[in-house]
């Protein structure tokens, strides 16, 4: 644990102000508007020329304490295309944590070998803690239901690429708005750019109050509805998320909701020409395969954008 940087008045031992000792990326809130825009510009450069040797001689550890396909592969591809090397594990069962090693010890051990650590962990707050104890930068690749900042940045990059701007867009967030970390982080990131939000979710999975309070504090207009059909004709971005069965106490309710929140191609008929459909993937049944051929379906290219964003992130955290 780093030493307290400052204390206030007589409350020594009670109030501390810490700063991370490195360039870690833990939460999208760690980046200012200017830093976000700089990352997006950098990603555009990497998209134009993804193969460079800027990480020549660098070793990046990918510690995935829970499974991931897209995130791990795109981070590893990003590092390899920049000339760096990868060490790590993709299953906690093959790491020392299965023997009871603390996260603190694992991070200290790995930091002896690697120049930066990309970490996914099932516990919320694990990335913040790792960043505080680590002498090398930590990149949060998802900590439980909390933060997944590289996903948020690739979402922003996808919105920017498809709309030509991030300013004054109408964004519909659909599905699991209660537990979905991607939609929560997207609200925080878009707050810099004067969005209008529409939250479309069943009552069981409505947007938590704290994010509605955040919108009000930041003068972000939003509306809430529970029906999907005909409620996104004014949208620029339709951000779909997976409605997860395990979130429902009543499985009958899940079956009803699951079908109500399935986007079909015919539902896109009256939408704006510039509308693009995003989804963090994997999808299950919330987007019918008949949407895939529609030019408004952008989710696979969105996943590809993750590569360029992760090249930009790794380059930033390792910048001198």
């Amino acid at each position, binding site marked *: 644990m780093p030493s307290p940087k400052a204390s206030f008045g007589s409350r020594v031992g*009670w109030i501390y102000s810490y700063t991370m000792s490195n360039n870690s990326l833990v939460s999208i809130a760690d980046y200012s508007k200017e830093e976000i825009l700089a990352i997006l510009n950098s990603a555009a450069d990497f998209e134009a020329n993804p193969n460079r040797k800027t990480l020549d001689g660098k070793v990046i550890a990918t510690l995935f304490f829970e499974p991931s396909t897209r995130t791990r592969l795109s981070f590893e591809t990003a590092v390899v295309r920049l000339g760096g090397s990868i060490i790590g594990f993709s299953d906690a069962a093959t790491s020392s944590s299965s023997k009871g090693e603390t996260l603190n010890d694992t991070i200290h051990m790995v930091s002896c070998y690697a120049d930066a650590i990309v970490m996914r962990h099932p516990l*919320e*707050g694990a990335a913040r*803690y790792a960043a505080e104890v680590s002498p090398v930068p930590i990149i949060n690749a998802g900590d*439980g239901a909390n933060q997944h900042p590289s996903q948020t940045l690739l979402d922003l990059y996808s919105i920017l690429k498809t709309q030509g701007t991030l300013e004054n867009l109408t964004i519909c967030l659909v599905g699991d708005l209660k537990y979905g970390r991607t939609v929560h982080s997207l609200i925080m990131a878009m707050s810099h750019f004067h969005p209008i939000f529409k939250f479309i979710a069943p009552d069981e999975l409505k947007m938590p109050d704290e994010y509605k309070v955040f919108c009000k504090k930041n003068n972000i207009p939003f509306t809430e509805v529970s029906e999907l059909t005909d409620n996104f004709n004014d949208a620029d971005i339709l951000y779909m998320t997976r409605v997860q069965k395990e979130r429902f106490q009543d499985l009958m309710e899940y079956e009803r909701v699951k079908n109500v929140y399935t986007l079909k191609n015919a539902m896109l008929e009256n939408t704006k020409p510039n509308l693009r459909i995003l989804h963090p993937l994997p999808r299950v049944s919330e987007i019918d395969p008949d949407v895939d051929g529609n030019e408004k379906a952008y989710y696979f290219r969105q996943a590809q954008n993750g590569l360029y964003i992760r090249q930009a992130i790794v380059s930033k955290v390792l910048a001198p």
Partner: protein
Amino acid sequence: MEKKLKVAALRNGTVIDHIPSDKLFKVVSILHLDTCLNQITLANNLESAKIGSKGLVKISDRALAEDETNKIALIAPNAKINIIRDFQVVEKRPLVLPEEIHEIVQCSNPNCITNHEPVSTRFQVLNNNGETVLKCHYCEREVKLEEVRIK
């Protein structure tokens, strides 16, 4: 010989007044008064013009540490703490929540790293539309003041 009630006055020590009646024994618990060997007077369900029904604690020869008064601020923010010396109130200590709370609160999110690893807890004190909430520095979950779990 003149009879005197011991509760009538405190020579030296601390008086915690205006504790909501349903919080009195929580205050007793967080101050570990059950194992305290000093003379202690407890009173509860006293009439109060301000809060209807109140509790009161008098502790002889003990001044509360700052982290103890801050714990009280978390569960009974409108309580009054008076420090007594030679039967006189020498200090009225205001209960003010600091901007950040360190160590004494346990995160209520079972999936928070602080409940699985030896991590000192940290919470930001926030005001959400007039309601005080604590936000965990690690898992970023917010918890209402009345739902706070004190270690």
